[in-house]
């Protein structure tokens, strides 16, 4: 049953007509026109679709759009911009993290929440916080360096 659902995404309001059971990912990509959250698995197993919902990293591929009505949604593109980068995005560029880069939303959005709660995480805390995310290209070493750079914990 289609409903009109109001979403607040990256600071802008959007209204979508959708089945409330449809995953948020499809609403963001098809209706709001934001392509940066990616479809990786549809099973909350990889993280490529991660957005913040009221600041919490959330797998949009399994989150019904009806469950986030009016809540504050932030995507990777809304986290920061080249002009006003989030520290993690700047660190990602400085450390040259990506290979294919399709997984980026998962890592940066999850790490952003970690750094907000734990500004100077240890290596172990970073690894624990980022568990469950996938990167098929094997950029994990650069990811660890980038998170530490953003936290200011690298030598």
């Amino acid at each position: 049953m289609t409903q009109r659902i109001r979403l607040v995404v990256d600071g802008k309001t959007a209204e979508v007509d959708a089945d409330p059971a449809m995953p948020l990912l499809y609403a963001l990509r098809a209706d709001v026109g934001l392509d940066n959250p990616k479809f990786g698995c549809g099973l909350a197993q990889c993280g490529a679709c991660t957005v913040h919902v009221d600041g919490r990293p959330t797998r949009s591929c399994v989150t019904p759009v009806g469950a986030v009505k009016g809540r504050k949604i932030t995507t990777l593109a809304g986290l920061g911009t080249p002009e006003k980068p989030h520290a993690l995005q700047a660190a990602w560029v400085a450390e040259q993290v990506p290979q294919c880069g399709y997984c980026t939303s998962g890592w940066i959005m999850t790490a952003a929440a970690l750094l907000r709660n734990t500004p100077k995480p240890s290596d172990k805390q970073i690894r624990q916080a980022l568990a469950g995310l996938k990167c098929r290209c094997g950029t994990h070493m650069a990811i660890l360096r980038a998170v530490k750079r953003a936290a200011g914990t690298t030598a």
Partner: protein
Amino acid sequence: MRSTTLSRRDLLKAGGALVVSFMIPGAAQTALGQAGGAAGGKPPLLPDELDSWIAVLPDGRVRAFFGKMDMGQGVDVAIGQIVAEELDVAFDRVTVVMGDTAFTCNQGGASGSTGVQRGGVTLRLAAAEARRLLLKRASDKLGVPVDQLTVRDGVVSAAADPQRRVSYGELIGGQHFQHKLEWNKQYGNPLLAKGQAKPKDPGQYTIVGRSIPQRVIADKAYGKLQYVTDVKVEGMLHARVIRPPSAGCGPVAVDAASIAGIPGARVVREKDLVAVVAEREWDAVRAARALKVTWAPPCHPFPPMETLYDHIRQAKGIGSQVPVNKGDVDAALKTAHRVIEAEYEWPMQSHASMGPACAVADVRADGARLWTGSQKPHYGRNGVARIAGLPPEKVRATWIPGPGSYGRNDAGDAALDAALLSKLTGKPVRVQYMRHEGTGWDPKGPAGVFRGRAGLDAQGNVVAYEFFGKGFTRQDVATTENDPKDTLAGQLTGYTPKPTILFQVPAEAYDFANKRCGWECIAPLLDKASPLRTGHLRDPLGAETHFASESFIDEIALAGGGDPVAFRLQYVKDPRHAAVITAAAEKAGWTARINPRRGKGNVMVGRGFSYTERNGTIVAVVAEVEVDRRTGRVWAKRFTVAHDCGLVINPKGLELTIEGNVVQAISRTLFEEVRFDRDQVLSVDWASYPILEIQDAPERIDVVLINRPDVAASGAGEPSTRTVPAAIANAIFDATGMRMRRVPITPERMKAALARA
């Protein structure tokens, strides 16, 4: 801003500006980005035309047209450095255009780590030739002999009088060279075109050799990069394909009424290919889940998984080779003091790309378009042409970065699925697979059994060495989607597959007096539309073969009382190879050992060595592991990699590429195995096909780059993949005294082995 929604009419105009702006920011301002035949007389897009490779814009910027593409390692940056270097222009003024059949010649696509090794050669020679022609023009214009001219950032000036100057833009900007090159008349990886100019001596390089970063990384970090999954075309339908629940079973009946309640959803079927389409993506996904299909009864094409290796051992060969046969191995084995034998096993593995493949195709009566993440868009064009019944020149394929690619993954299948469904519906069609198709139905890296046999004399010297691999060919489907027979769409609609019989022997420089290396392939388990069909997965058969061969070298060394590094240096005479082995050992602070440490505590520590070669690139690895006795967990904790790929173009890019190889290879060694039952692949997502996660990433990877400016650059995208697995297994032996000869080395297998110790 880049446009995401492109009108269909614009897309179908050959060389249309909108499409150009999609791929090449800024190109719409100039005619130079356009395909052959445009006013102004750009010569046809053929490899023997300099204009097919290099263009100078009116403002002096340079465009290089590269017929391969970058899969994330920054090959385009390296190509840009090479072109900027030869032309003497600043790197920032060079744009590399990749992967569009309208603008680039077929250099084979991303393939075999040859981006720089082969693709870069023609770009270097073309850029050098362009510089030669530009200097000639400058000489005429300035009235100064060529040998008295200098070039600095695209401005030619008289050495004696720098005020006498002219820029490349003034000399030719916006025009074409109209200049023929010598071409070897081959397409694909072997393509070579050259002019008369001699490229620079590496001693003069100022741009090549620098760690120039990848600009595209910012687009990825800020969520701006458009992937093939993000292409939208007006009027496009979303499709999902329906694969059978049992491999080899076709559809008997499709109940279209089962999706009647989903808006706009309908079934599209051609022979054994079943799909659903809808205007909205979510409706296509729902329809694919809801559709009721009656399938033919299961035919049990696969052996029980636990018997896979016995099946390989016992199966009749369908082709074999003995590429290395030196001395008399049989005679030497008879007189050997001692014979060592061991067998190693490597499973089927999935590409399991980060996202399942996606493609958009628009097939019309008079022409077709394809947007694909495939590594080989030029071949994809040919495949689409055959599906569409069009000549290839009526099809334009555009590569757009896909969700990861390390070989012939599911991208080629998606491309031809999209083309077929577009043809059947008369609309542009976007196909994206679901996760279970991306992992469950991609072409697989082949499983194999590898046997080593060596004869030692009383002093532990090797008198005979034999290595033999047996398994599935690496190419049930070809490396490209050039022919529909090599895709699921083709195989499900009547094209007959024809595998290429191809396997591998170890690549190294061990100088054993009597040495024999060979292989034998067995038939596929299911000859058509098999979820276990094999195809190229990063360093095809390299990880498999060298896991076995370098584990076996370790076994021979220790059996003969030799330190693994000293043993290798005893038999590797080639100084370049020996230097790499020495560099890794020195950097890691290797200490000689003969017996394993066999730690006594709960966490056992060990180090292992491995060395390999791949098409001219030599790699040696020291791995340090921790093995937890209680859980069986192996942590591949530290790596030292010495890497010689000749001339280093971009050191930082190379280091990151090597790191990626190492981490992905750890994943394949410790975690990855495609599981199946008698009827179907059971590895269909990240839970059933686990890969390395960040808690298992190493603590540290040290890379030693051995730069050899006097040796042409060879590949780096794959070579270090094959070196890692044995280094880990050899380190595990050092830590525990247990020889792990089956991959993946899971905690369960490790625990079981420790229980036997």
